[in-house]
């Protein structure tokens, strides 16, 4: 190799920062950096910033994909727009307008998409919904351990679930933690946290072990009860309440962010 070939240029340094230099070139660049401490320091800072940026954006990458971005729903939206343009479906038009206004595609697509949900997510949603209906009407003992003993409650549930559990702060939606309980499930222990608002309206956060790699939010509707469920790293999560899908979605997203950040009081955005 001639001296000219070996000369280190700026693009070599950039390739080094990105880990894209050939192994042979890599050695030459490192030899060069060893003799130029100022350049070495600069390159190290650029690498660090690159890593930091990747780390900062990693949680966004790992988030469940919201249902409005599922391809089936987007295709549904396209079909409805086409129908509207052709003047074929007045009812379909209504559905689309309502859905778009709320940031969602029409209700009928949602149910179709739900029907295709993986069994694991569906099972979590069904369990959570059943547990909700059992305890939401309970007057004397809605929770097993109440929120005055929150630390003890979470420690206990975390130990039984084998997963560190936090109680997401839902105060900005008007809900405060009432307490929680341990429940049986076909996958071992399950935890239910219950919240209520000043009017006494209740919602629950349900967690149990679950397998499945699909992390999308799934919506489940049963009578007056709405549930969003998802699977994340070996656990299934569900947020259930007697509210509309649109009302529940931001709460479910806050719970997702709250549980994921491993801290209470986290604010989305």
């Amino acid at each position, binding site marked *: 190799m001639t001296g000219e070939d070996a000369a280190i240029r700026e693009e070599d340094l950039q390739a080094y920062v990105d880990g894209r230099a050939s192994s042979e070139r890599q050695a030459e660049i490192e030899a060069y950096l060893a003799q130029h401490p100022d350049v070495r320091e600069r390159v190290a800072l650029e690498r660090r*910033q690159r890593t930091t940026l990747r780390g900062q954006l990693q949680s*966004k990458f790992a988030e469940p994909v919201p249902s409005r*971005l599922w391809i089936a729903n*987007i*295709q549904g939206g396209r079909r409805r727009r086409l129908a509207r343009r052709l003047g074929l479906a007045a009812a379909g038009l209504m559905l689309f307008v309502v859905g778009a206004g709320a940031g969602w595609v029409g209700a009928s697509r949602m149910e179709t998409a739900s029907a295709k949900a993986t069994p694991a997510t569906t099972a979590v949603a069904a369990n959570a919904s059943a547990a909700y209906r059992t305890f939401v009407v309970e007057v004397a003992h809605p929770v097993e351990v109440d929120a005055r003993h929150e630390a003890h409650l979470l420690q206990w549930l975390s130990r039984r679930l084998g997963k560190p559990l936090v109680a997401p702060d839902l105060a900005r939606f008007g809900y405060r933690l009432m307490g929680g309980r341990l429940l049986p499930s076909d996958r071992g222990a399950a935890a239910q946290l219950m919240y209520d608002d000043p009017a006494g309206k209740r919602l629950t956060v349900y967690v149990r072990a679950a397998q499945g790699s699909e992390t999308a939010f799934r919506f489940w509707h049963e009578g007056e009860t709405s549930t969003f469920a998802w699977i994340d790293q070996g656990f299934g999560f569900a947020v259930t309440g007697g509210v509309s899908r649109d009302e529940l979605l931001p709460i479910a997203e806050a719970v997702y962010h709250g549980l994921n950040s491993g801290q209470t009081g986290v604010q989305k*955005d």
Partner: protein
Amino acid sequence: MADIANLLEQQIPALRRYAYALLRDHERADDLVQDTLERALSRWALRRSDGDLRAWLFAIQRNLYVSRWRRDRRRDTAVAMEDAVLAGVPARQETVLEVHDVLAALDQLPEEQKSLLLLIGVEDFSYDEAARILGMPIGTVMSRLSRARQRLRSIVETGRTTLLRRVK
């Protein structure tokens, strides 16, 4: 159709990450991704079958952002910086600052430099692919990437001093 859905869905997490880094707003980022997917579906037949799907999707999203979205982008980076500090895990102060610094600093770069750093540094596109997505010669990619990193360094350095002064 199921195949198309499957192919596209694999790319959605990365498209959301790129959109969020550009817009710094969760809802609007998903709006941009939705636009991107709609356009991809409507142009699916026009796609070169031998072309790389991932690069094609990122090019669509980047073009949509530049043509329609950039104008009303959220600009209150100062607020975003404070949020980042407040929401940060109780780690060593320095760590928290360094984390939010890079993302906040990125916000102050022109779109082209920002996209270069994201496509190459985060999304792992090759220089060649980035050149095609951004529609510029590869030599330009290399020189502008270098300039982008240089600017990022200087912004982070000044940004940190400002923030520390405010914290005191």
